[in-house]
């Protein structure tokens, strides 16, 4: 898994590529925790290059979602690929997370 963090105005885009699973979820969670601790609570996860998530990945996303929302922010997902969307739907995540077709749309959603 590769993680790349870049600011976009007052939004932070976290690009996640590869697979979020039992072997990589801790690293992702640590990265996201660092951003939240630094006050970057308006997050967009760019999932263009994410091809898989297991239950460990779901736990990392949910943990970050709780932390950002408790601080007045959010975690929004952009460009979710079909295999990942399938798992998110199965776990009911599409009902609690906001999903957008691409990163610009997810960033723009914070302006509303």
């Amino acid at each position, binding site marked *: 898994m590769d993680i790349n963090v870049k600011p976009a105005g007052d939004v932070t885009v976290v690009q996640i590529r590869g697979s979020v699973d*039992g*072997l990589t979820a801790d690293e992702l969670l640590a990265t996201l925790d660092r951003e939240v601790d630094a006050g970057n609570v308006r997050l967009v996860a760019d999932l263009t290059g994410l091809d898989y998530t297991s239950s460990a990945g*779901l*736990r990392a996303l*949910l943990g970050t979602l709780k932390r950002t929302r408790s601080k007045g922010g959010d975690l929004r997902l952009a460009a979710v690929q079909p295999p990942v969307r*399938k*798992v998110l739907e*199965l*776990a009911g995540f599409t009902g609690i997370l906001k999903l957008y077709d691409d990163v610009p749309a997810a960033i723009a959603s914070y302006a509303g």
Partner: protein
Amino acid sequence: MNDRNAPDRPARSVAVVIGSGSVKCAAALGLVRVLQREGIRISQLVGCSGGAIYASIVAMGLSIEECVAASERLWTREVTAHGDRRALLRVLMPKVFGFDSDFGLRSDELVLARLREAFGDTRIEDLPTPLHLTATDFANGELTVFSRGSLVDAVRASMAVPFLFRPWKIDGRLYLDGYMADPLPVGVAMREGAQTILAMGFESPYEERISSGARFAFQVSSILSNNLLKSQFAFHALAHHAEVIPIIPEFRQRIHLFDTAKLPYIIEEGERAAEAQMPYLLRLLATEDREERAVLHRRATS
């Protein structure tokens, strides 16, 4: 296929959970084929409803070809072809014909005969691979797990589709289809100590056209069971530390309840879905293997 008493390395094994999904559950045979090819042992099997049939035939240690043949013998359109006329009269005139919980619109004689033919007097605890089958307690809706006792009774209870087949009595209690409590019971594998769980689940198909009372009932049932599947899966995936790897076959063709003619295609899609997760699973098992060896090394040298 698997040996209950095999002393091989515990790390290179996975639990397999097969959810409800009628004949689509045969996709689990594709998953098993991939696991065999990769040399990954199944530490335990959990089955629900249609998944109970396939979990059972895999747990018996049959080859994939034998599993397919057993499935073709067991699950055909004839098993629900014979209606129970008295059941219909009991619905229409309960005071005249009497009505109680022993109710199903279809005769279960043939399905029972075929289960007996397939599984005989086999007891669950005697199977080569540990097996857990789920059903729903008719009195209180609780998930019940059968890990011992008659295999025929447990499978019959697990696939007691409401309204279709009458609930099945075991030790004085009545049981309905396992999907009523949890269509993909990964929690059972967690409770039995599994660390890595391959969960093969299926959403119930929605009706293309509501043209009869039966189709209306199936639609309502699909809505309820699909929502239950999602909520139960979410709870277990988030509340436990075990690694759950969902394996969800994509069926481009619509699979009907008794499409046994499509078994090769169904198995192929199961194999394809399993192969997609193999690179990750192999990395995960290799890591667990290294950790296991490190623990053993520390113990040996301390």
